[in-house]
């Protein structure tokens, strides 16, 4: 079975300091992992995706994530937080069927709310 666990429900940082949002996954197969961001009263925007190519994945707005199989982690980082980064962040894995294929539906973590202080 696949699952994702976001280790922090709320992270608060000061503007200009690094951001670390933690995510651990569980998957019987090589997973496809994503980070989505949701600003207040908005839809979800894809930040970045891991699909078994490079383990260090660069996304939009300066975010990146590193896939670490030995630690079953896919943490999201950004060197310097901006006020506009304040939002809810979801770590997501594609639900895989028994044969390793997919119908495309996603398993979401519970989300991490990022607050950025001036």
């Amino acid at each position: 079975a696949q699952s994702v666990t976001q280790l922090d429900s709320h992270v608060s940082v000061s503007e200009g300091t690094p951001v670390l949002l933690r995510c651990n996954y569980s998957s019987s197969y090589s997973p496809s992992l994503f980070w989505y961001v949701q600003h207040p009263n908005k839809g979800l925007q894809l930040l970045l995706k891991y699909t078994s190519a490079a383990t260090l994945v660069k996304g939009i707005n300066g975010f990146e994530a590193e896939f670490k199989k030995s630690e079953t982690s896919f943490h999201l980082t950004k060197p310097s937080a901006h006020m506009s980064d304040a939002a809810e962040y979801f770590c997501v894995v594609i639900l895989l069927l028994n044969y390793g294929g997919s119908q495309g539906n996603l398993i979401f973590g519970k989300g991490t709310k990022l607050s950025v202080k001036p």
Partner: protein
Amino acid sequence: DTEVTQTPKHLVMGMTNKKSLKCEQHMGHRAMYWYKQKAKKPPELMFVYSYEKLSINESVPSRFSPECPNSSLLNLHLHALQPEDSALYLCASSQDPASAVGSGANVLTFGAGSRLTVL
């Protein structure tokens, strides 16, 4: 066009009303999805259409009725809803859900959502 467009953005309806949410994409994607999101929760899958056929129904009550008239359009018909159905309804699409995982073709693109309030 790389967007998923949802209308209306906001909808208020009574429990006896019949209304519909609409979703449109022109990216040539062959899978479309409805998700429901309650406040401070992650989205929950309701329905998946793959190649215009309903492939997943996550035990959603019959007062929600999906329809996929063609590969670009997805509707969600609402009838006799309850106040607890108030939520943000998100539509999404993906290129090809049956493609190999890892190909990137099953990445979901989400719309901005329709905020539904049931009185």
